[in-house]
Structures are given as C-alpha cells and as structure tokens.
C-alpha cells in the first residue's frame, strides 16, 4: 500500500486515492512515424527492477496527473513532480544519483 505526495495538492495520499498510469516520459508517435517508433511508443517498456519513472493520477483527489520516481524493488519513492514536463527535474536526478549511484539514468 503505497503513499505518494501529490505535487499539486502537496498532500501525501493513500494509493487508494490514486490511479496508476504506467511508464512516464514516453514520446508519442503519430501518423508518419515508422513502425518501429510507433511500436516502441505503444509497447516497449523499460520495466526496470530499480528506479522507475511513472505516471499517477490523483484520481479521487484533485484529479491531476503527476509523475513519480520510485524504486520497483524496494518501493522507495524518490520524488514526485507535475506531469507538464518532458524530463525529470534536475534535483530529483541528483537525489537519485546519491541514493542509487549505479542506477543507469532515466531514459
């Protein structure tokens, strides 16, 4: 039973208030994209055992989508941030580097 902090509300909420939304920072490919790019966008998943960037919606709260960096092996949450960005905030990356020196980056 996870708890995550909604970056909009600022409150730490129960998993039951949230809806998970899968891997974050996927780049959408539409018409004109190659089969490979389109397949990669829809299906290929990093699914790491370790640091994972993912989408959540504060579905039974403010309704906003946000992003989280979380370890899938320990469930430690490194941080959450608004969804309106194409990459994780630098300070979050720094924090993860400190806690998981060999984590291999978010891409």
């Amino acid at each position, binding site marked *: 039973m996870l708890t995550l902090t909604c970056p909009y509300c600022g409150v730490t909420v129960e*998993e039951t208030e949230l809806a998970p939304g899968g891997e974050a920072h996927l780049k959408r490919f539409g018409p004109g994209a190659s089969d490979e790019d389109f397949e990669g966008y829809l299906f290929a998943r990093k699914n790491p055992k370790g640091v994972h960037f993912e989408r959540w919606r504060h579905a039974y709260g403010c309704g906003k989508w946000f992003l989280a960096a979380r370890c899938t092996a320990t469930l430690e949450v490194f941080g959450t941030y608004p969804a309106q960005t194409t990459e994780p905030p630098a300070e979050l990356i720094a924090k993860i580097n400190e806690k998981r020196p060999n984590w291999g980056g978010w891409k």
Partner: protein
Amino acid sequence: MALRRYSMFAVAREALRFHAGWERAWQSPAPKKRYDVVIVGAGGHGLATAYYLGKVHGITNVAVIEKGWLGGGNTGRNTTIIRSNYLQDPSAAIYEKARSLYEDLSQDLNYNVMFSPRGLLMLAQSEHEMRGYKRTVYANNLQGVETRWITPSEVKDLVPIVNIDGPRYPVLGALYQERGGTARHDAVAWGYARACSAMGMDIIQQCEVTGVRTANGKVQGVETTKGSIDCGKLAIVVAGHSSVLAEMAGFRLPIESMALQAWVSEPIKPCMDVVVMANLVHGYMSQSDKGEMVIGGGTDGFNNYTQRGSWHHVEETTRALIETFPIISRLKMLRQWGGIVDMTGDRSPILSKTPVENVFVNCGWGTGGFKSIPGSGWAMAELVAKGEPGPLAADFGLNRFKEGRFIDESVAAGVAH
C-alpha cells in the same frame, strides 16, 4: 539414468525400512562448460520446455538455470486453476493443449501432480457478460474445447454455497468447463524436474544469470554466479523478470511486471467441489484438497518486483466473494502472498524469436501462467528445437505488436487467471 518408479508398491516396500531407500528426486550438479540449450528459469514453464525438448525433440544436453529454488516463482504462488475456455483461437489452442497434457501428466511424469478436473464455472452477472460467455461457448465448441452454458439452477446444483440472487449482481448462468479444475502446483515443477534430471539434464539452482554473451547478433552463452556457460541456444523463461533478462540480451519487451496476490482461509471440511470465477466483481475461489478456500483477484496496477501486493485489493476481492459466497464471512484468512506477473500489451503471452539470434523468450503469461505450463513447454520446446514456431506458438510472436495483431482475451472477461 534409470529412474526408480513411484507407485503404491514402492511406498509399501520402503515403509518396511522407514523410507531409507528413496533416492533424490533430481540431481544437483555443477554446471558444465557448454550445453546445446540453456534455459533460464526453473519454474514450470522452463522445466516443461526442457522436458519436451528431451521427450519430443531428443535434445537432452540441456541446462535449466535457476536463480533461487526450482518452482519458487509463480509456479509455487498461484491459485492452481486449470482451464482452457479462452475465446480467441490461438489462446484456446495452447491452453487446451496444456489442459489435455495435464490430463495424463501424473502418469507421463510418474509423479502425482493431482490434476483434478473438478469443473470450472465463470459466473455471468450481467447481460453483457452473459453474451460474452455464450460467445465463448460457441467459439470453444469449434475449437475443440468442451464448454457449455449452464443455467442459474444448474449453477446452484454444482455450487450449493453460491448466492444466486445477488442481491447486487444476480447470477444469470455460467460458462462451464467440466474438465477444468486444479492441480498441485509444486508437484508440477517437481515432477518435471525429476523427469528432466532422469533424462540427464542439469538443473542448476542458486545460479543467477548476470549477463548474456552475444557475438554478431548471435548468442554465445550466459554469465552466471556459478561461472560462464556456453550455449547453442538460449531460452528465457523467467516470468516476472523477463524485462531484466531481455535488458541483458539487449532488447526491450512489451511487458510490465506487476504484483498479483492470492490468499487462503483456514482449512475446513469440503464445501465446494468446483472452481468458481466471478469476473464482474473480480474474484475467484476454489477449495484445496487440504480444505483451504483459495482466493485470488486482479493484479495491482503499477510496476513492482517485491512479491507483495497492496492490501486494498484483498479487501475488494474478499467483499466480492462474500457477496457471492455468504458462508465464508466467518472463515478466517490464514495467509496472503504475492507473485510478480508479466503483463503484456494485449494481456496474452509471448513465445517468440527475439532480435538476438538463437535467443527465444517465453513470457507474458500474465495471470494465466500455471494453467498453461504443459502447453507452453510443448510449444516452446518446438520453437527452440526448430528455431521457428510451430502452430501453437505461431500467433504469439513479438511481431504481433508491430502489426497490431492483438490476441485480446479481455473481450469475454474483465480478468483472467
């Protein structure tokens, strides 16, 4: 190596000397330098792959490598349900192959896997579900899968403890597979392991793969915690950790690892002889031979490698089952546990060649892994032996995602297991 046959007479003979004469069920050798085929993962699927490689294709220079203990992943964590009442042709084919192999598996392996074709029902609790299951029955009849639609009163006869009248969702009938049922999950792994070992295959436990060696796009071997092992072909059969192994081999899979939970009650005397699934409310239940009510529901929705799930799913599924089976309210939950399942883009499995030559994957069984073990092993052995999929595996290739050729079973049922 000749295997001493198990039988009632053998047990009686051993009884006289307090069972001092039983030999090891499987050997525990050190890895050799090279194998024709290395299978990563000594769960049911990996061991079955090895078994049919030997039995059907005559390939016995095989190692099955396991990071933990054999059968210790999802094979030993599921709710042991066996059924093949799938809607889509490719699914029905491979699950029915599995189910039919289960029928004779105890005799084939000389190990009692306790296949119990006690009957399986999927309750229809809405008009929509009813139409979906009727469609499944008609599909199954053409697929060679014996299922039928039964009425509420037939449901009540088969499951006297079910609450037919709702109140929330009345039972409108059920999709019934008379020869669906359960088997003893550990015994399936153990029986295959014993048979593989008897064919001279090496089952190497406590041996974690740390790297996949390739040259010119072709597999050469694996690095493990017990040293480097060369192989001609590599089969990755590691439900839950498929993405981790794929990453080592240099490709990504359309898979996310998620927790799936199950729980059991304390043992009581027999009160339910069949397996019942109530998909509208996301719950299913059977009674084990020990007397425990065995319960499961759907997966968690987020990536997770901890083998622990979230508590609220336990509450939600238990609620659904108390509505369905009011007598269980006063039973007590004895134990809950979790496993990590591979969820694919269309919730159907992958048996496929990969971007690396001679590397094959068998993964993505989601919540349906146990029931498919013999069929999966059969089809995977064929794929590995021939280098190309046979008819059972043909539709489950990775290429389907690029082509948009989904095998989607959620059509008929919200959850699967």
